[in-house]
């Protein structure tokens, strides 16, 4: 791991040194961001006005205007991203972060983007979803020569259609996207009132395979990812989406992982307001509580935050709301450990029975390998949320200030609105009469829990 890191750093330094000062003088500054905190964007300082988006755990890239062209400067480079407190990853990204900064432009903007490669290998950038001249499409080998390490390329085109877009390399994608090279792109409508919402969030879904105890994703992994992330953050590292009650909220999601993600909202019904192709006419929008976002797709979801509270918003694939768990851990559910646990404990001091009643740790914290997140460690006001990965909360509150995206803390429930323990006599459950088994039907080896409560030997 160390040697690979050194290799990357060394190569990156060589790349940086190779950028000539004369060339750098002509290009705009490349701002850097190393914090994983959400940076609420300022209103646009120049150019056409627009309502800026918020990138949870991310930021938007400043630009400079030159001859009426918006000039951005992206630097592709190795970065260290905190996936969640307690875990850092050696990733590749842009301008100090993975994902790279969100690029916000306005429909009709002339855009010039300088791309400097400080990676140890060639790269390119593809502007996912943009309609642009073929030579600006960023496919190395096909539409342009690759950007060699240390070189700076420039892309220039007009952002023709308002909508939701992404950027990512189209060179060695398996490694480069697998290492976290991606970013969001929003083209705002010319008329800021068009499709205007109160809060507009954007994030990318990505996944990594980082061996527990390691720091660098395995770029050869095809499907068995173990870290499922929103903007390269895993719950409980994901920032909550703070929303004022009755705000019209938009969440734009791009999927750059290798599988689909059915995103599910609690307490609200949302509708799909935009796709990769653009905005959907209001009459054609689908009301949903779960929206599946396919690989390489983007969706803009909208809802009115009319229900105060702390509402989960998460991928509905249950293993995507968990952090790393072993793929070949056998199922111990319902397995009685009495007696055998002590035997194992004699051989392996420190052994504790787990998994015999389910995978919940019940708030138990145990030492883990270095740089490894607990599977389900999110904590809430009532205890363990037992979630990880692609999970965040939408915190709907009365009277939040416009532009205030700070976490308002846990929701204070009005009296009598929280589920509680029933202490009266339990009503008799109604059961269907048991159907007799067919004579030749194999009898499943089913055991009901016998209710033993203590792990033996501990």
């Amino acid at each position: 791991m160390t040697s690979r890191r050194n290799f990357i750093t060394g190569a990156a330094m060589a790349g940086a040194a190779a950028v000539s000062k004369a060339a750098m003088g002509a290009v705009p500054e490349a701002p850097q961001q190393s914090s994983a905190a959400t940076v609420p964007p300022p209103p646009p300082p120049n150019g056409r006005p627009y309502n800026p988006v918020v990138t949870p755990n991310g930021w938007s890239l400043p630009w400079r205007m030159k001859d009426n062209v918006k000039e951005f400067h992206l630097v592709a480079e190795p970065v260290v991203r905190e996936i969640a407190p307690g875990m850092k990853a050696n990733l590749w990204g842009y301008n100090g972060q993975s994902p790279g900064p969100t690029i916000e432009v306005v429909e009709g903007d002339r855009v010039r983007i300088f791309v400097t490669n400080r990676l140890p290998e060639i790269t390119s950038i593809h502007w996912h979803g943009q309609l642009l001249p073929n030579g600006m499409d960023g496919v190395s080998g096909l539409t342009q020569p690759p950007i060699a390490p240390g070189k700076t390329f420039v892309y220039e085109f007009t952002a023709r259609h308002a909508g939701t877009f992404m950027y990512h390399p189209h060179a060695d994608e398996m490694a480069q996207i697998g290492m976290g090279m991606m970013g969001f792109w929003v083209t705002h409508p010319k008329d800021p009132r068009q499709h205007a919402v109160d809060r507009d969030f954007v994030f990318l879904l990505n996944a990594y395979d980082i061996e527990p105890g390691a720091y660098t994703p395995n770029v050869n992994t095809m499907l068995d990812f173990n870290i499922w992330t929103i903007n390269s953050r895993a719950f409980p590292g994901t920032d909550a989406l703070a929303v004022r009650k009755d705000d019209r909220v938009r969440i734009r999601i791009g999927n750059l992982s290798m599988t689909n993600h059915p995103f599910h909202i609690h307490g609200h019904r949302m509708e799909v307001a935009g796709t990769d192709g653009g905005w959907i006419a209001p009459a054609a929008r689908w009301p949903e509580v779960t929206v599946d976002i396919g690989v390489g797709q983007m969706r803009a979801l909208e809802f009115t935050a009319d229900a105060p509270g702390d509402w989960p918003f998460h991928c509905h694939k249950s293993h995507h709301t968990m952090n790393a768990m072993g793929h070949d851990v056998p199922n111990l559910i319902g397995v009685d450990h009495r007696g055998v646990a002590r035997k194992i404990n004699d051989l392996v001091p420190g052994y504790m029975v787990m998994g015999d009643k389910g995978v919940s740790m019940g708030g138990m914290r145990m030492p883990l390998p270095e740089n490894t997140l607990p599977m389900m460690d999110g904590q809430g006001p009532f205890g363990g949320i037992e979630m990880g990965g692609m999970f965040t909360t939408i915190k709907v509150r009365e009277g939040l200030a416009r532009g205030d995206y700070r976490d308002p803390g846990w929701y204070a429930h009005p009296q009598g609105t929280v589920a509680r323990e029933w202490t009266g006599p339990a009503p008799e459950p109604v059961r269907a009469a048991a159907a007799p088994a067919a004579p030749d039907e194999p009898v499943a080896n089913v055991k009901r829990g016998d209710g033993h409560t203590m792990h033996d030997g501990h």
Partner: protein
Amino acid sequence: MSAHRHKRAPQRRHRTAPATLCAAALASALLAGCAGVTPDHGFAGVADSTRERIGATPRLAQDAAAAQELQEIVRAELAAPLTMDGAVRVALINNPGLQATYWNVGIAQAELAQASRLPNPALGFQRVSGQGEVEIERGLNVNLAAVLTAPLAARLEARRFDAVRREVGAAIERHALETRRAWIEAVAAQQSLDYARRVHAAAEASAELAARMRGAGNIAGLDLAREQAFQADAAAALARSGRQVTAAREKLTRLLGLWGQDTQYTLPERLPDLPDAPAELRDVERLALARRLDVQAAKADAEATAASLGLSRTTRFVNVLELGYAGKSERSAPSMRGYALSLELPLFDWGGARVARAEATYMQALQRVADTAVTARSEARESYLDYRSAYDLAAHYRDSVIPLRKRISHEVLLRYNGMLASTQALLADSREQAGAVNAYIDALRDFWSAQAALQAALGDRIDMPGAQPMPPAANRHEDHQ
């Protein structure tokens, strides 16, 4: 030696020949101090040199009282777990085979004492009568050659006595080495058995867990059978390990010469720890040449053959020299007295063949010394290198393999904690750790065995390796070569 007949020996008196008396007195003077049988049967010297060389004192069970005393010493030694040195101490006083060997010293001493004594003179008397004549012959005969050669013979016997003492010393050292090895094997086998038990326990726990999982409907019969097969193999390995323990312990018991109740002795649970550093011996070859009994024996043998060559040269004629008193008296004639002397004329046999044989034997002995020295040097080098590499290997296990295995086990447990690894993975790791520990025990066993072999090859103790870089023996004996 033949008696001489003297006709009509004088009846009144006779006197011993002055020459005979003279020779006898000379021989007695030469032999003074060499002769005699000591109460310890000559074993004290052997015991002393052994104590110095192997750190344990052999004792001769020369009578019932001594046997009783030795028995008590043995019992005291067996009361606590038997150490490696303790095992050697017990073996040296308790092994009957070794005790039998000890008596060789007594036998050799007795033979030396025998050789140191002058042969008894022979008195001859003969009376013949007939026709009025009586003829009496008297003769006092001493085997003059035996008298003359007695000092040399005694020296030869003394050398033989020395050789026997060395042989017995060598037997003791061999026995001590075998005992050390057997002790090391027995303790290591016992330790390995503990680890076989651990492996089996892990396999058993794994199989039991698998059976529970099967019972809960979580795994297939195939997986259960695989776990049970593994446990069955581990049980076989455990049984094999138990046999190994029995064999190793019985071998040790034999070398200790124990039987009956005494076989219930206990051994330490573990081999001694690896020393912090191996012994640094700068000149093992010189040490070996100075200290090894086989080298000393070869040298002594050459010296002995040199002496016997000298003897052959000086006695090439003398051994046929016979000297006697002669006296003759006849009733009809005055008594006569005188002596008789016969001397072989070296016309046909000049003794050259005997001398040549002795010379050849001497040259052979010299070459044997050289050969023994070459072998001793080589064995010293080999056993020292073996000792060092055995140390390095054991240290490698202690300093690298075992800590890494522990690290791995710790990491696997952390992964288990995070539900990143299974219970079976934990148990499999515990088995692998046991295997590594077992390999370390093997390496440690090889080290102690190599150390014992090195001691034998150098004929010296290597106490507290590292603490004593150069045994003082090396200095004591450096002028031997």
